[in-house]
């Protein structure tokens, strides 16, 4: 009982200190980033805020296409990081300067832990008795899967084409699907919940992630955030999370 009270006090104290740390930032920088970037970008934003005390970073993670649509419809986003160049292209009218490619990602096969069906490569996924799930060709991860299958001369007949790479992963981790095609970073994030089977030649066709400050932005702060992603420290964080570097 007493330890419970102590714990409650400690938690309260922590919450209070968390609330009162440092002066309130005078500016808000809104960063819209592809959902797959969540973990590294949270770290990068923390570092950025430590160095730019007057700026608070507000991160918004969603599908790249969703973010692009919001930007086209006038959403106040200052920096945009997309999961592929095609999506960045769609908001080119709102981009200040040139987008910079800051990371790459490649596809991999994920299966149930232990790979019970003994899948050894992309060709094995042609097996009709396997329930294979991919992204739909309308979204970046699905385009990448289609390109890769074509390049390797493999015909995939997925039982489901999802709109989000995280939905593909969920279908595999829940045991509904035998195999799925996701990014290596998603597979790394899923840890022990999946087995990973690398795809030969996948790294020859990586997804390239561009970042850009948008014209609506307070330009110095936005550019500083782009720099925080592309400098050595930002690149190391992305590398730690399984991204390839351009």
């Amino acid at each position, binding site marked *: 009982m007493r330890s419970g009270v102590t714990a409650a006090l400690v938690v309260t104290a922590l919450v209070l200190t968390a609330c009162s740390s440092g002066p309130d930032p005078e500016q808000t920088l809104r960063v819209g980033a592809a959902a797959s970037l969540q973990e590294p970008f949270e770290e990068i934003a923390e570092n950025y805020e430590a160095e730019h005390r007057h700026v608070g970073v507000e991160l918004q993670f969603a599908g790249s296409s*969703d973010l692009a*649509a919001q930007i086209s419809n006038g959403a106040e986003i200052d920096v945009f990081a997309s999961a592929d160049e095609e999506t960045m292209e769609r908001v080119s009218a709102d981009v200040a300067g040139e987008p910079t490619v800051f990371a790459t990602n490649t596809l991999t096969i994920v299966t149930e832990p232990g790979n019970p069906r003994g899948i050894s490569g992309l060709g094995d996924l042609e097996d009709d008795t396997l*329930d294979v799930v991919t992204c*739909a060709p*309308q979204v970046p991860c699905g385009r990448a899967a289609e390109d890769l299958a074509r390049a390797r001369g493999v015909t995939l007949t997925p*039982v489901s084409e*999802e709109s989000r790479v995280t*939905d593909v992963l969920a279908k595999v981790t829940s045991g509904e*699907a035998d195999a799925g095609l996701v990014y290596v970073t998603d597979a790394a994030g899923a840890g022990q919940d999946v087995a990973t089977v690398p795809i030969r030649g996948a790294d020859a066709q990586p997804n390239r992630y561009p970042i850009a400050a948008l014209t609506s932005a307070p330009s110095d702060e936005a550019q500083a955030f782009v720099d925080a992603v592309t400098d050595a420290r930002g690149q190391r964080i992305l590398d730690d999370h399984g991204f390839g570097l351009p």
Partner: protein
Amino acid sequence: MRPPGWLWVPAAGAVLLVVVPLLGLVAEVEPGRLPELLTTQASIDALLLSLRTASAATVVSLLLGTPLALLLARGRWPGQSLLRALVLVPLVLPPVVGGLALLLTFGRRGLLGQHLEAAGLSISFSTTAVVLAQSFVALPFLVLSLEGAVRGLGRRHEEVAATLGAGPWRRLTRVTLPLVAPGLISGCVLAFARALGEFGATLTFAGSAQGRTRTLPLEIYLQRESDPDAAVALALVLVVLATGIVGTVYARTIRPEPTA
């Protein structure tokens, strides 16, 4: 008894809140491109699949929901109010939670799904999964409508029939059901409409494959990624369908209440 006049102000706000977004959607439609956008194979597949599965879900709701509604309205048994509350839960549940519940029950490793799987029946990624998800969310609408209709009817007609020697089955099929037919029809129409709009549970539980599990709402969700105009055109189809359906039901419910 006229309500106070100032009620018009917030009431106008309510109408604007509902109608303006619909107008916003309609304003975005390019009428000239509608035929081209709505006749792609993907759109047609999605529309046909939606009509098929929503009809199936309505039949399921009718077959299972009618007996339940009758028992809830007429019977008196322990746990009745608890059961009514439980059956209505899908009405207020976020769709994705419904999907998760279905997945954990009928999925390959689910409570029942693992046994079905062992028996060679796989529901995941099939049209059956779509119908199951739609029935799950549509059933409460039918039960609610029909139970209300039966309660509103009162017992007099049935009692008269009983004194004339009609047994329970005859009373049900010759007296009660014909009298509540309007309630039954509006229940079916609402269930159909709800099934047509089902999204979250289908996405979570059935997946998204053209012609098999990708219903109209899922097609809209996907098209939004690559072709927002096509998404808007398909959304218009759903809005028109929904408006027609609500119109049908509303035309029925403004009839005077039975005075039994």
